[in-house]
């Protein structure tokens, strides 16, 4: 995996140290002057600019979706209806989910891919830079459409992010059309992003960068991109069927016309289950970059990590039925989906084992990215274990549609995907800005987030097991105490993210100590061989990887 920048391409130039070599690559002599101001960002085809745009967009959406979560938690602070109308509550749960999935987690990973993949494989940019610009800039419009539907007569989407028919067809408001179009735009954006990642990795690797030398973040993203290509069109088809059922008189999901509402769930979850792995595989890649750096050891079991990622991706296509155990599926099918689902824990277990084995007898230091990575490993495993409980058919009949499910997917998505994104930002931020971020603020952010996120999500297991249903604005009195704690944890977690915002703004102003090109003591890989901050153009002459 160790790669060195080869100097022979620079030919006539003298280059003794890596830093010199890298500065050769960034010689700007033949470039036009970059546009500045707003047009720099509107017209940019630079992978680093687009990565930054994606990351800022994701962060803004994270705060918007988070604000909706605050509305939900404020309403659930005590039993009874006090702050919002039930219909508005439903819109909040729906749009919170849609924004966090399609607006925060997925664009954040795409942003990291844009920034890091070319730098990690020694490519000068993404393969299709103009499409890259396009795939980002349609995204704000998708969410503008979605958010504006909240102000329409009858309100925005209120049928849950899973938009089950007939809730989204017979019983939805007219703004469903806007929901459908915004999901179409998000899907097109994701597909374009995925195409770009695949073409870049297939065609633009530096000489000597064979597939089995690629950093794991690149590997996991390659597999994620294929999942996106496979299932985003299915989502597009599902929303199209909802659109025609609602507005054009078709009966895909309408029993009276010969359709079947259960078919909707099959199609949706055929998309939906690979989708949840789209949101976790890049996270696995990030953790596999960070843990070796701060353990000062090579990643344990590199090849098994690659194969485990592939296995998880393949299994994701045959487990969708575990979302539908209570739809009256025959017992043979329930058993098939139960065992297929449990099988997922094997490759996932391989990954967790490898991370722990990487740390074993390493010289571990606990910098901020490592703290987030370790929190990820522990908390994601808790989420994985509750997932295993949900996979068991008879148990799932009890847990289905309760807060236990909410606890499960928030552990894997918040302390899993989002913690990994935060870890990645802390890991690569000094490379992006050239300055070390404010470590004191980062520690505050970490510890406040860690404590509050567990106060927020852990008690959800208990109220869920006791039978509290999800997506309901009111609840029985016996759940009151736990819900109070959950809400307090929620507000604290929300406020903790403002520390992160302050830290990022500070970092973007280039305050702080300058860092070396390697930044972290144990960091290895091509991205650590170019200077910090990473110059606007890198690897215009490909490095040779040995």
């Amino acid at each position, binding site marked *: 995996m160790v790669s060195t920048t080869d100097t022979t391409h620079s030919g006539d130039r003298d280059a003794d140290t890596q830093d010199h070599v890298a500065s050769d690559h960034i010689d700007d002599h033949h470039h036009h002057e970059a546009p500045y101001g707003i047009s720099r960002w509107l017209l940019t085809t630079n992978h680093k600019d687009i990565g930054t745009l994606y990351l800022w967009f994701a962060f803004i959406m994270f705060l918007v979706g988070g604000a909706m979560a605050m509305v939900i938690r404020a309403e659930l602070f005590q039993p009874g209806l006090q702050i919002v109308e039930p219909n508005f509550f439903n819109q909040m749960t729906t749009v919170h989910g849609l924004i966090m999935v399609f607006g925060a987690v997925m664009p954040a990973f795409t942003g990291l891919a844009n920034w890091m993949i070319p730098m990690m494989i020694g490519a000068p940019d993404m393969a299709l830079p*103009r499409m890259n610009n396009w795939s980002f800039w349609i995204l704000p419009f998708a969410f503008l459409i979605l958010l504006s539907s909240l102000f329409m007569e009858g309100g925005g989407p209120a049928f849950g992010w899973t938009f089950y028919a007939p809730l989204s067809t017979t019983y939805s408001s007219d703004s469903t059309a806007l929901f459908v179009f915004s999901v179409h735009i998000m899907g097109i954006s994701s597909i374009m992003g995925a195409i770009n990642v695949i073409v870049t990795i297939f065609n633009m690797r530096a000489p000597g960068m064979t597939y089995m030398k690629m950093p794991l973040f690149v590997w996991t993203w390659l597999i994620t991109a294929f999942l996106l290509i496979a299932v985003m069109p*299915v989502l597009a088809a599902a929303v199209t*069927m909802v659109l025609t059922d609602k507005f054009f008189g078709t009966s895909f999901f309408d029993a009276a016309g010969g359709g079947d509402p259960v078919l909707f769930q099959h199609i949706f979850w055929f998309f939906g289950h690979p989708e949840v792995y789209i949101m976790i595989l890049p996270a696995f890649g990030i953790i596999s970059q960070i843990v070796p750096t701060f353990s000062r050891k090579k990643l344990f079991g590199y090849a098994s990590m690659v194969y485990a990622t592939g296995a998880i991706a393949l299994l994701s296509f045959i487990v969708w039925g575990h979302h539908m155990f209570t739809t*009256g599926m*025959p017992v043979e099918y329930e058993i098939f989906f139960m065992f297929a689902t449990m099988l997922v824990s094997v490759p996932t277990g391989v990954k967790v084992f490898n991370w722990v084995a990487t740390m074993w007898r390493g010289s571990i230091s606990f910098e901020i990215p490592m703290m987030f990575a370790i929190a990820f490993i522990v908390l994601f495993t808790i989420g994985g274990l509750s997932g295993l409980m949900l996979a068991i058919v008879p148990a799932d009949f009890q847990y289905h549609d309760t807060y236990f499910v909410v606890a499960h997917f928030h552990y894997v998505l918040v302390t899993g995907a989002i913690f990994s994104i935060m870890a990645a930002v802390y890991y690569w931020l000094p490379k992006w800005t050239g300055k070390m971020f404010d470590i004191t603020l980062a520690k505050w952010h970490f510890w406040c987030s860690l404590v509050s996120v567990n106060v927020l999500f852990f008690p959800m297991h208990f109220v869920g097991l006791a039978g509290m249903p999800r997506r309901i604005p009111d609840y029985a009195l016996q759940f009151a105490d736990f819900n109070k704690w959950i809400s307090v944890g929620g507000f604290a977690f929300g406020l903790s993210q403002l520390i992160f915002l302050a830290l990022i703004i500070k970092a973007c102003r280039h305050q702080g100590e300058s860092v070396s090109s390697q930044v972290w003591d144990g960091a290895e890989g091509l991205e650590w061989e170019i200077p910090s901050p990473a110059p606007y153009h890198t690897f215009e002459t490909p490095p*040779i990887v040995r």
Partner: protein
Amino acid sequence: MQDNKHDDEVDKSAHAGVRTPLDHTKTVNKILLLVAGMFCFAFALVPLYDVFCKVTGINGKTNTEAAVYTATDIDETRTITVDFITRTNSGMPWEFTAQTRKIDVHPGQMNEVAFYVRNPTNRDIIAQAVPSVSPGTAALYLNKTECFCFQHQPLKAGEEALMPMVFYVDPQLPEDITFFTLQYTLYDITRTVDKDTVDVAMN
């Protein structure tokens, strides 16, 4: 423009593993084919699902066409209890009840039951009944030679009617099934049926 320059430079360096923009087009086309294929596949799932359900009987749907009674031996050693449940979809104002709530039948034996409907409103309504059998596997062995669910059912304002259903249970019915439930749900489809059909149906 900048990007073309990159590509030119890359071409000149001519390293193994660095490719030309032409290769990008090829790769992109292959991926786009996959995207289009998956979009079509999702729509193909609709008929595939119906075929799959018909073969395996997993969603309790019965045949939508009349079965032909082939004289089979009546298996008098077995008695199957069939339960009838009726319901109307929300917004469907008809009264809808089964005249026979429960019937004991022998496999192979023809049986006739009837359902009572009344349109208590002052407007003409066309209904469609959708059957569902539980456990789902029994649906494969429920043969209906005559059923109101095969056609649209029109009722003028205030009208009432008895709707017949003739069926027999296939003697191949698995041994472990001694009891199953047939449920009919009535849907108001007046709005989705076009105007001409309504007039024909009502007269």
